[in-house]
């Protein structure tokens, strides 16, 4: 019975649509859970700036407030370890997701970011068997997710050696930064056959390439509604084909249920894996319908989903 | 006092030439000073006095000329460091303490040897002792930040620091217009101290535009004109009149008071400024020269600033202002340091020529030409930066800024600081004419004869107006009495 337990969400960033969708999902699912009395409280906390130090302080405050569990999307996999350790020492359950932490006492709901990078190249190998030139758009330098996805992409390129990366820019996971960076290198690049991305930057790349008057390469999308909408437009106009892959913001609700299960005394392995959300040519229309205007393709998880994930990990 | 000229001079400069672009600030000047001597240095604004001083203290290198040290050795690499090692200290025309530091901490800046444990108490006792000696009753807490002191107190602190010695003895103190913001009683105290300092073998260079003072304090007077030394004689050989002549100005006429017609009783003042704490209500009428007197630092500036703020807008400016202000503390209150002289002169009148909010360069330049001539700013070109002007000439530019407006009220905060005697006469004349034509002047001054030019005078003490004097009652005697809180018969 967890009806007297209080769970907190510690979030390091709220400044993009993915995070906003994550917070909305959290509110939706936990609001329901609190009202039916599954848990006593499930509050969300966001830091003003995306910084590990600030989030560490936030975690320490959450410990002081006596939360029983902290669900954590971390700014850094290692820099929060001190604070997470303190939480564990104080008897607080810590479940990290998306941005996970390496501290052993915490639970991790990991996304296989490496695989997410690799499948992009694999997909391209199916589409362009003869291979070609890739433009890689990376995220924010020095951040773990960026490093992982990029490593996955490079692994894919090693595997399918008909592809080579001819340009690589950092788009900071933001449309406008990606657009700016791509526009800057594009004039110097040879013909581009495909663009591999990390999410949140596909539309910006498309805009930049269109502005340069080049042939549209296959751009791997990142599940944002504007990307999917653009893809649909292109598909209707000229049969454009691509894929879209990203982690669903609703994973926060999965973390919530996992935390609830741990509090409930369930034996949960420290490391869980959640699949990423893929949109293909066939599921395009469906995804477009369910995704809010300007938002991100999403799924929310139920208690049963969580149990299934836990069972799979055992 | 007898000076022993057989002794080696503390420092000797021969054939000094210093150019700033086209301006010959020094044009072959010779200068020497012996131990125990006080040399007065006078000359019109821009004559080159401050430049000479800056050469002696090592701050400026010469284009030509030779500097001989007290050892008799010719110095080829004369610098601030060499000068300080010779025991040369300087009080600059512009206040040059660190405003954020206390007086004690400024002592530390002045004496690099003051360090190690206990330096603070050592410095404090040194500076307190000197302050008490030079300016008895100075009222300065040497632990306070300089910025919290009044301008007169800062000046006193700077003087005391310059006379102090630690390590190398102080051989020569240069005072560049040290009394410009001191009232007469403080100036007398300083002069008395300079004499004891001389008696103990120290040398002093004393620069001032108040000629009586210079005659009083110095053994020898050097007169400069246009970068050259034009006269160098014992002070007994000069009178105020002959000094003025030597400087090349017109002979000073005595600054008499105007005779003004009696005011109608019903006339409304141009400005009234009732303050609770004042014993007498402040009023000024059309066409009047109102003086503010009293010892310096007793709240006169505050009243002038308050008056100005009350009649000019923080949010909106009129095309023609109601009041204009002439700063005395020019660096803090007046000058825009990176602008040219012209831009500094026109900023208050700019609105007059605006069309669709745009300025009119031609009119602006014309205005500059007019006032350049009218008030005699010594510079070949108004496009030079304002800071290239000598102190007195900067002051003239500020005068031009205020007088050129059409404001019916002009507020002046001891504006004649460092202005030479010739120009002063011209300005007095200008003020009288303007007042006759209906302008009102409110004029704070630390110099008694300036105050005595006014039609009516308010005397300040401890931040309050304590007395109003009018007509013939405006006299040095009455003003002093009121400033010291004595009843006047």
């Amino acid at each position, binding site marked *: 019975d967890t009806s007297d337990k209080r769970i907190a969400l510690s979030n390091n960033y*709220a*400044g*993009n*649509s993915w*995070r906003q*969708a994550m917070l*909305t999902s959290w509110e939706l699912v936990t609001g329901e859970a609190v009202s039916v009395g599954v848990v006593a409280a499930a509050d969300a906390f966001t830091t003003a700036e995306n910084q590990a130090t600030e989030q560490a302080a936030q975690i320490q405050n959450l410990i002081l407030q006596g939360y029983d569990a902290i669900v954590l999307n971390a700014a850094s996999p290692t820099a929060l370890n001190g604070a997470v350790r303190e939480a564990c020492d104080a008897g607080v359950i810590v479940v990290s997701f998306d941005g996970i932490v390496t501290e052993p006492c915490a639970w991790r709901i990991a996304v296989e970011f490496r695989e997410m990078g690799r499948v992009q190249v694999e997909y391209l190998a199916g589409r362009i068997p003869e291979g070609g030139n890739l433009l890689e758009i990376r995220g924010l*330098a*020095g951040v773990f997710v960026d490093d992982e996805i990029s490593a996955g992409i490079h692994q894919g390129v090693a595997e399918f050696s008909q592809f080579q990366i001819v*340009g*690589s820019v950092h788009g900071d996971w*933001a*449309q*406008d930064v990606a*657009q*700016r*960076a791509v*526009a*800057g*290198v594009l*004039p*110097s690049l040879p013909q581009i056959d495909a663009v591999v991305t990390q999410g949140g930057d596909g*539309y910006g790349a498309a*805009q930049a390439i*269109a502005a*340069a008057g080049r042939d549209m390469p296959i751009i791997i999308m990142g599940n*944002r509604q*504007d990307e999917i909408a653009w893809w649909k437009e292109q598909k209707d106009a000229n049969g454009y084909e691509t894929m879209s892959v990203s982690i669903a913001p609703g994973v926060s609700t999965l973390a919530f249920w996992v935390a609830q299960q741990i509090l409930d005394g369930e034996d949960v392995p420290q490391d869980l894996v959640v699949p990423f959300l893929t949109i293909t040519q066939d599921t395009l229309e469906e995804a477009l319908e369910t995704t809010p*205007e*300007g*938002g991100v393709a999403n799924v929310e998880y139920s208690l049963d989903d969580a149990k299934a994930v836990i069972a799979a990990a055992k | 006092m007898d000076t022993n000229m057989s002794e080696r001079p503390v420092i000797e400069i021969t054939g000094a030439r210093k150019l700033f672009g086209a301006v010959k600030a020094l044009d072959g000047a010779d200068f020497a000073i012996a131990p125990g001597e006080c040399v007065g240095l006078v000359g019109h604004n821009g004559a080159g006095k401050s430049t000479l001083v800056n050469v002696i203290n090592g701050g400026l290198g010469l284009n030509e000329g030779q500097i001989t040290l007290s050892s008799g050795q010719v110095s080829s690499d004369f610098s601030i460091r060499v000068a300080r090692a010779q025991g040369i200290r300087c009080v600059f025309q512009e206040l040059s303490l660190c405003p954020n530091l206390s007086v004690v901490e400024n002592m530390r800046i002045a004496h690099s040897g003051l360090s190690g444990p206990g330096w603070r108490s050592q410095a404090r006792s040194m500076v307190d002792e000197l302050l008490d000696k030079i300016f008895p009753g100075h009222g300065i807490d040497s632990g306070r930040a300089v910025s919290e002191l009044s301008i007169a107190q800062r000046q006193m602190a700077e003087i005391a620091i310059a006379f102090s010695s630690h390590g190398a003895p102080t051989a020569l103190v240069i005072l560049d217009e040290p009394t410009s913001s001191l009232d007469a009683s403080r100036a007398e105290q300083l002069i008395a101290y300079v004499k004891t300092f001389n008696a103990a073998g120290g040398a002093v260079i004393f620069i001032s535009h108040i000629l009586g003072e210079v005659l009083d304090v110095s053994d020898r007077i050097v007169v400069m004109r246009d970068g050259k030394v034009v006269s160098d004689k014992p002070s007994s050989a000069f009178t105020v009149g002959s000094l003025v002549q030597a400087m090349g100005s017109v002979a000073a006429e005595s600054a008499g008071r105007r005779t003004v017609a009696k005011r109608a009783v019903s006339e409304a003042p141009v400005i009234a400024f009732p303050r609770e704490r004042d014993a007498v209500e402040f009023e000024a009428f059309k066409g009047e020269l109102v003086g503010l007197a009293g010892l310096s630092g007793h709240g006169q500036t505050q009243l002038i600033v308050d008056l*100005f*703020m009350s009649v*000019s*807008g*923080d*949010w909106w*400016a009129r095309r023609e*202002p109601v009041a*204009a*202000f002439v700063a005395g503390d020019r660096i*803090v*209150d*007046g000058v*825009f340091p*990176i*602008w*040219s002289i012209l831009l500094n002169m026109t*900023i*208050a009148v*700019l*609105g007059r020529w*605006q069309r669709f*909010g*745009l*300025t009119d360069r031609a009119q602006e330049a014309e205005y500059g030409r007019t006032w350049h001539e009218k008030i005699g700013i010594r510079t070949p*070109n108004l*496009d030079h*930066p304002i*800071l290239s002007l000598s102190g007195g000439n900067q002051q003239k530019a500020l005068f031009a800024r205020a007088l050129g407006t059409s404001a019916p009220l002009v507020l002046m905060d001891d504006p004649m600081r460092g202005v030479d005697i010739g120009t002063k006469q011209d300005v007095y004349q200008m003020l009288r004419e303007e007042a006759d034509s209906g302008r009102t002047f409110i004029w704070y001054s630390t110099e008694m004869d300036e105050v005595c030019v006014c039609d009516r005078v308010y005397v300040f003490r401890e931040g309050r107006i304590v007395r109003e004097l009018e007509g013939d009652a405006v006299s040095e005697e009455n003003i002093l009495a009121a400033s010291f809180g004595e009843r006047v018969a």
Partner: protein
Amino acid sequence: MTQLVSIYRSRWIWSFVAAAVVWTITVMFTGGASMVGLTQAAFTFAAFSIIVGLGQMFVITLGPGNVDLSIPATMTLSGTVALKFINVDASLIVPGFLIAAGIGLGVGLANYSLIKLLRIPPIIATLAMSFIIQSTAIWTNRGLRIRPPQPLSDFAVGFTFGLPNLAWVALLISALIYLLLEKSVFGRWVIAVGQNMRAARLAGIPVDGVRCLTYVLCAVLAAICGFFLASFSGGAALNMGAEYLLMSIAVVVIGGTSVAGGDSNVPGIWGASLFMFLVVSMLNTYGFDAGYRMIMTGIIIIGVIIAASSRTVRI
């Protein structure tokens, strides 16, 4: 006079020289083939930094401690609200633009009220304000991207006479700002306040009015920039202004405006904005890793400032 002119000229010419050098090196990579594309991209993206830079320049001219850190948040809020209001309806473009500008006006006034009424130093006041604006932006739309109407986005990505439309917009704004700064009474007042605020007040300048208007001007320009950036990149994102916090300061100072206040420069902002875009493009083109790229960016910025300073004679 001529001496002064030459000093001023050499101050900002350096940012152009630097931009040209970097441009040449980048173009060399493709043996000149990327000339047109790179130039057009540079002008497109420089336009944004120019627009916010001009506002920041005015604020920085007000003297030490004056800087507007609320620019990114203002861009986000104006872009979000305007596009939400327009809601893909082409007939509402003009009112939407006015709403964006109105938001700038509001932000500027709010900034200055904090500075004036609560005497909060500008750097903190605008930082605190930026948090509030950012929250407002989140609250209005929760980060959903609304697309701009077709004519607006066509305009934002379009070209006229070979130059991007946005560069023309930036040129127009620059000309107005130049007039304001160099030829108007207001500009003279701003520069006076930047040199010595007390002296400015005592010279009869309405200091509060001038400072307030300056902050408003900066916020309005940021808001306009946010509006165009959102139209250009297909919708407003919550983090879309983040780049422009340091960028706006960098282009102002690299462009030759003195951080000590009272001395500013319009053309330099163009040079600096082109330069800042081209540096990143050059390093991207030559395929440096992120770490080396940052190091080189830093060294190049310092290099340009040092080169410019050797021609700068402080009087």
